[in-house]
């Protein structure tokens, strides 16, 4: 089943807030091998001017991919998750994600296109606090490999 091109331009309602925890930041930092103590030691983080421990630069993908799930899990979108590979990813950070943040994501489906027998879908997730402060723009292109 091909990917549904009608999804291009779609914007989803803001998600329920994701609460950024110090525990998840530590777990993520350890998984990517980021040993900066700013991820695990609140005193270090505060000495650098942050409110609490901060996340590594790619942590935002965790929240963004949960937002992407709204599209990927939608049967009408026609995306076979087992055939999905990640093509491209970009983050623009307005400030670091910080423990204690409650982050709302708004998913935009920017483009849906076919190329070389594969489908490519570019999504953009705007992450902001509940109060509306922009935190990060995460842009992702997934490739849905064509069938043989």
């Amino acid at each position, binding site marked *: 089943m091909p990917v549904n091109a009608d999804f291009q331009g779609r914007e989803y309602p803001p998600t329920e807030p994701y609460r950024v925890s110090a525990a998840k930041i530590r777990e993520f930092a350890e998984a990517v091998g980021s040993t900066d103590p700013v991820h695990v030691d609140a005193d270090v983080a505060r000495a650098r001017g942050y409110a609490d421990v901060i996340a590594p630069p790619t942590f935002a993908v965790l929240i963004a991919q949960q937002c992407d799930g709204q599209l990927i899990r939608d049967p009408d979108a026609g995306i076979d998750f*087992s055939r999905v590979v990640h093509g491209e990813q970009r983050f623009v950070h307005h400030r670091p994600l910080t423990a204690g943040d409650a982050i709302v994501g708004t998913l935009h489906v920017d483009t849906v296109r076919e190329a070389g027998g594969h489908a490519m879908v570019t999504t953009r997730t705007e992450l902001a606090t509940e109060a509306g402060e922009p935190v990060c723009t995460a842009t992702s292109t997934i490739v849905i490999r064509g069938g043989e």
Partner: protein
Amino acid sequence: MNEHPTTPAAPATVRSAADVTVGEALPPVTIHVDRPRLVQYAGASLDRNRIHWDEPFAKQVGLPDVIAHGMFTMGSAVTLVTDWVGDAGRVVEYGTRFTKPVVVPYDGGADIEVSGVVKALDPETKRVTVELTATAGGEKVLGRAIAVAVLD
């Protein structure tokens, strides 16, 4: 794998823009990735796609073997930049293409070689642009990998 840094609280020693020159190379690193690490990343990131840990499944969907999460490669590669800058919170932009998968065999895993070069520096804003190169098995696995950080 699970080292908990115990560095005492201290002000950040962020690299100064005055000490950086365009064309400068960052110290390269080798990142080892194996199946346990991918399971760890899957749990930490909540990306539980089976192609990253289930070998029969990966092969069934046409992949040569289990492949690393592109985001694992991207996330671990940028530690080259954050360690060099001196504060992980200084990265304001980071983007890449995933040009080739990092194939992670059960035996021995894989090594990702990461290097970086300063491509641009704005003395006004103190924003430094670093281009990263990441290879595994001699092939480039990241394309146009660019990180922008704010120096002191």
